[in-house]
C-alpha cells in the first residue's frame, strides 16, 4: 500500500514516468474488463482513455484505503456502467428479447462442449451477448463478483443478476456449440 501511495504522489506531482507505470501496470486488466463489458474494442479504447484521464484528475482523492488497482477498477466499472446506461433502452430491449427457450432446452443429440473452451471462442461469444446479460456475466463469471455485488454495481436486484447470468450462460452455450446459425441468434 505504501508503494501505491508513493506512486500516486509522484503522479500528482506531474511525474510522467510514474503515470506511465500506473498505466502499464493496470491497463491490461481494465481493458479486458471494458472490452468484455461493452462487447466493443473501440468503445473499450475510448473508455480506457477516459478512465486514466479521470484517474489523473482524481488522484488527489486517493487515500490508500484500497489498492490503486482496486481504486482504478471501481473507476472503470462506474465509468463503463455510465456508458452502458446511455444505451439503456436498447440494452433493455435486447435483454428482454433473450427468451429462455432459445437455449435452455437441452438437445439430446448435440455434442457437449469441450471441457477446455478456447479462450478466443469464448471472447467472441461474450461479445455477441446482449448488453444486459453480458455485463452481469462478465462481473459474475469473469470478474468473480457475487450476485449481491453485481446487483449493486448494475443497479438491479440480486435475483435479476442471477437471471441475467443464467441467460448469458444459456446463450453462450448455444453460441459456443454453433448449434444455431449466427444470423438467427442476432435476430433473437
Amino acid at each position, binding site marked *: 500500500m505504501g508503494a501505491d501511495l508513493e506512486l500516486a504522489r509522484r503522479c500528482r506531482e*506531474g511525474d*510522467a514516468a510514474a*503515470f*506511465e507505470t500506473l*498505466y*502499464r501496470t493496470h*491497463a*491490461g*486488466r481494465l*481493458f*479486458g474488463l471494458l*472490452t*468484455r463489458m461493452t462487447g466493443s474494442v473501440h468503445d*473499450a*479504447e475510448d473508455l*480506457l*482513455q477516459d478512465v*486514466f*484521464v479521470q484517474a*489523473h*484528475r482524481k488522484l488527489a482523492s486517493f487515500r490508500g484505503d484500497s489498492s490503486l488497482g482496486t481504486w482504478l477498477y471501481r473507476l472503470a466499472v462506474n465509468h463503463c456502467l455510465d456508458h452502458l446506461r446511455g444505451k439503456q433502452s436498447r440494452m433493455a430491449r435486447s435483454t428482454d428479447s433473450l427468451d429462455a427457450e432459445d437455449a*435452455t432446452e*437441452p*438437445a*439430446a443429440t*448435440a455434442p*457437449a*462442449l*469441450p*471441457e*477446455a*473452451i478456447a*479462450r478466443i471462442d*469464448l*471472447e467472441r461469444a461474450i461479445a455477441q451477448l446482449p448488453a444486459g446479460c453480458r455485463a452481469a*456475466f462478465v462481473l459474475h*463469471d*469473469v470478474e*468473480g463478483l457475487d450476485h449481491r455485488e453485481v446487483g449493486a454495481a448494475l443497479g438491479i436486484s440480486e435475483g435479476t443478476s*442471477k437471471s441475467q*447470468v*443464467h441467460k448469458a*450462460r444459456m446463450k*453462450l*452455450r448455444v453460441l*459456443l*456449440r454453433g448449434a444455431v446459425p449466427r444470423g438467427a441468434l442476432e435476430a433473437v
Partner: protein
Amino acid sequence: MNDDRTLTCQQLIEALDDYLDGGGKTARGAVEAHLASCATCPALAADVRAIRGAARTLGPIEPPAHVWRQVRSRVTLDAAPRRSWLDRRGLSFDGWRALQPLGAVAGLVLVVSSLAWVGTRLAIAPTVPVADGAGALAEFQLAEAEYTDAIERLQEAADAAGPRLDALTTATLKSSIDDLDLAIGDARDALAQEPGDALSQESLLEALGSKVTLLQDTVALVDVEPGTEEQNP
C-alpha cells in the same frame, strides 16, 4: 426425458446455477439425483461448468499502443492552461505538436486574408449605402459565401490527402467533420426560419470557420504523418 420424481428438467435448469455457484434453496441432493437419472441434463450441467471454468481463466487484454499515446496527450493537455479547439474535440496526439509552426503560418495567412477581406468591405461600404439590418445580412451572406468557397477548395485538398492518413486519424477527423456538418445544417435550418437571427448567423459562421480550420489542419497534417513518404513515393 425425466425419470426423476422430485425434480423436473425445467426445475433442474432453474436450480443448476445455484447448485454450481454454491447457493440457492434447492437441495443439492435433489439436483444430483436428477443429474444421475436424466439422459439430457448432465450435458447441460457439463456445458455450464465448462463455461464457468473458461470464464475464470480470461485474463487481461493489452490495449493497442495508440491508447497510451492518447492518454498521455490528454493528460498533458489537461495540465495545460488553455486547450485548442482540436484538443477539445479529442483530436490531440503527438503529431499536432509538430504542427505548431505550421499553425502559426496558417494563422498569419488567415489574419492577413481577413484583413484584406475586411479592407475590401470597408472600401466598398461607403459606395454602397444600405440600411443597417440589410447591411448586416449582406455582410453575413458574404462571409458565409467566403467560408463556403474556402471549404470547397480545402475539401478537395483534404480528400486527396485522406488516403495518406492512418485509419484512426481519418476516423477521428471524419467524426469531427460530421459533427460540424450537423451544426452547420442546424444553423442553416434555423436561418431558413429566421434569416436575420443574429445568434444563428453567429453559430453558422463559427461552425464554418471551425470546419475551415479543421480542413486546413488535415491538409497540413499529411506533411508530418510518419511513414507517409514511404507509402507515397
